[in-house]
């Protein structure tokens, strides 16, 4: 019995952004074998920070290392015929191909379903692009900020009361992560379906759509009430707001259900607030929030953040601190759950990084190996498995 959920699956991944990398990482961490194909000069992610000391180095890119553990790494020039021929040899034994080249770049690498589907009818091929495989913006140039804008998220992010400041990206290339997790999800679904149909297929993923699909209640304000979304999103209920505590830390004060509000105002020593008409329920509080906010601001400013958090949670009020990274890596709770783990990379050394997003009871999520160095597995994969002659490939500039 396989003790890893995805043991036995082979995924070939190639691409230009973190989207394909994150999609195949999710599968690698559950036991799939992922063969990552990089161009001879390396995945463009290797040029992205963070770097130790801020000094760029292809084997020390935090962006690359985090998304590429558990993978085998080979180099191939996919713009050359011989590179494409070798890729097709890899695909013979693969279950899925995940890539994130925009349509024109993909075509230049032979990565269209027209070119691949016929020869590999059992292969699931997943193409992640900013706008999808068709439509008028198919070939629009996009980076993460572009997609966050086109998907409708950037408009929602900012600080109320500062219309002079622009719509804002969220931290950390989230359009890549979202199209990546959708990529993994759809690929996994297709691989499950294949157990029955015994056929592969093509999956077309639009990052713009991945963002538009998760805009909370803000999109529906148009078809339901013909209300355009406010900058900073809709805030139909309150409190859902940040306040600074005595010690300078920020607390996110949130009451979703009325009993939570009742407990909160009791805790504040102002139970009479529950009888105030201006605070009668979460919707009314939202319309009167400008007037109510200063009272809460004043009270929170006298509290110690750690005590406030603990006391509120004891009363089942869902307050939460605005954690710093240092709060998180030192959290007792996360320590006990073993969330952070240390991975030792050949060049960048030991790094404590986020671990499992979920814990499987019988088939572990695990990091088995650090991200591959450039071309680390050319010998094991290209030479030993496929019988390629590495030195002639090197000479021809294919690897």
């Amino acid at each position: 019995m396989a003790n890893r959920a995805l043991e036995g699956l082979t995924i070939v991944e190639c691409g230009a952004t973190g989207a394909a990398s994150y999609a195949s990482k999710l599968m690698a961490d559950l036991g799939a074998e992922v063969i990552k194909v990089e161009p001879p000069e390396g995945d463009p992610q290797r040029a992205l920070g963070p770097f130790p000391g801020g000094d760029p180095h292809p084997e020390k890119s935090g962006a690359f290392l985090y998304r590429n553990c558990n993978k085998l790494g080979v180099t191939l020039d996919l713009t050359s015929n011989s590179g494409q021929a070798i890729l097709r040899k890899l695909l013979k034994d693969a279950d899925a191909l995940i890539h994130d080249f925009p349509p024109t770049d993909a075509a230049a690498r032979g990565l269209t379903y027209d070119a691949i589907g016929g020869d590999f009818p059992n292969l699931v091929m997943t193409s992640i692009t900013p706008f999808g495989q068709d439509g008028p913006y198919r070939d629009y140039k996009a980076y993460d900020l572009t997609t966050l804008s086109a998907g409708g998220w950037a408009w929602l992010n900012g600080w109320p009361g500062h219309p002079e400041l622009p719509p804002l990206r969220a931290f950390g290339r989230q359009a890549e992560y979202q199209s990546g997790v959708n990529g993994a999800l759809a690929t996994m679904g297709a691989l499950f379906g294949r157990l029955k149909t015994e056929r592969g297929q093509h999956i077309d993923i639009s990052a713009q759509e991945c963002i538009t699909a998760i805009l909370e209640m803000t999109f529906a304000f148009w078809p339901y009430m013909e209300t355009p979304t406010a900058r900073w999103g809709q805030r139909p209920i309150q409190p859902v707001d940040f306040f600074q505590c005595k010690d300078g830390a920020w607390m996110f004060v949130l009451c979703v259900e009325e009993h939570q509000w009742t407990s909160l105002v009791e805790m504040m020593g102002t139970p009479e607030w529950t009888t105030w008409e201006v605070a009668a329920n979460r919707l009314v509080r939202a319309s009167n929030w400008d007037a109510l906010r200063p009272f809460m601001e004043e009270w929170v400013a006298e509290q110690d953040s750690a005590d406030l958090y603990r006391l509120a949670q004891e009363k089942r009020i869902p307050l939460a601190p605005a954690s710093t990274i240092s709060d998180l890596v030192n959290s007792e709770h996360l320590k006990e759950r073993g969330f952070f783990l240390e991975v030792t990379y050949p060049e960048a050394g030991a790094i404590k990084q986020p671990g499992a997003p979920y814990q499987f009871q019988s088939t572990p999520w695990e990091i088995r190996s650090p991200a591959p160095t450039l071309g680390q597995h050319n010998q094991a994969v290209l030479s030993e498995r496929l019988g390629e002659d590495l030195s002639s490939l090197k000479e021809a500039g294919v690897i």
Partner: protein
Amino acid sequence: MAGPLDGIRVADFTWVWAGPTSTLQLAHMGAEVIRMESMRRPCVLRMLPPWLDGQIGLNRSGYFNQYNQGKRGITLNISSPEGRDIAKKLVAISDVAAENFAGGISDRLGLGYKDLSKVKSDLVMISMSGYGQTGPESGYVSYGPAQVPLSGMSQLTGYRELDQPMHVGMSYGDPNAGLHAAFAVIAALFHREKTGEGQYIDMSQWESTMAVMGDGFMEYAMNGSPPPRNGNRVDEMSPHGVFLCEGDDRWVSIACGSEEEWGALCNAMERPELTTDPRFATLADRKANEDALEALIMEWTIPRDPFEITKTLQAVGVAAFPPLVNRELADDPQLNARDFFVEKEHLEVGVRKHPGIPWKMSDTPCEVQRAAPVMGQDNDYVFGELLGMSSKQIADLVERQVIF
């Protein structure tokens, strides 16, 4: 074959946003998802706006109707022992059970994995609590909005001009957790198909949110301090920002990822001399003079329409796009050309436009099967057809507020 999960049934105990987002994905792929709700404690989303025409009503919320498309809905009071027994009968004929109560609650209700796996030995079950099922804070209550600050994302997102953490504009912890959860469930189903073994998955929304903040943790581990809040700027590109345009609160995002793109932008702005201006000649120069650079670009964008700018710049290969508002998304030529939006008849609100499925499959096409259910819409189908109860039995359970 409809979607690839055709034939899979999901007993859906989830509520609010994270859990329903996970089962939404399964419904998108053709699984039969049966959402259990109760009048005793209706889903928070049903009681949040937007309601059609602004009139409050349990079946009128666009928020609920968005994330429960394609699902069946029943009313079952699982706080009663009889209701729990019926829930277990449903689990016994399902493949997956999903819940997102606070840690420990499903066990207390007698609906935890150890209870449910007794009635369905190869069940795949996922719990999606805020803090996970173990650890000293596992009993803490959490909602998606709080996951954004809790995970550290609020501290890392923000303007240089303001010393404040940011909410990011939506409860990102919820959909992100839901999508990771759906992936995990299908992986577990895949494993079950091969081995016959079901299993339990403990997912913490907090941890799944930190999983998509890898760069922040890597920076801290490598250099001992978190990355600074830097507005829309990034180290590897310049310009990289959102610029004010003509009109009322209109903006456009512009990003140049190479010297070629920077040159194309300068030409489009009719300022080719900027490429050789010592302040802007290289990426390092532009990063060092980014305030001046952004001011120059803004001079060009302010009198212009953001969609015209987008057309002009995209024609020369420069990444540009306005931050779209919901109305513009609904009318967006790209989303509409790809038939992204779904318009299914809902029993109470009729046909409304909803975002659909962000992937297309060529061989097992995925489709939203039906609009979101009104309260108890599928009681007859589930209690009668699936569980074999007579109409008399059902009426009796309704009478005693078990089906409620």
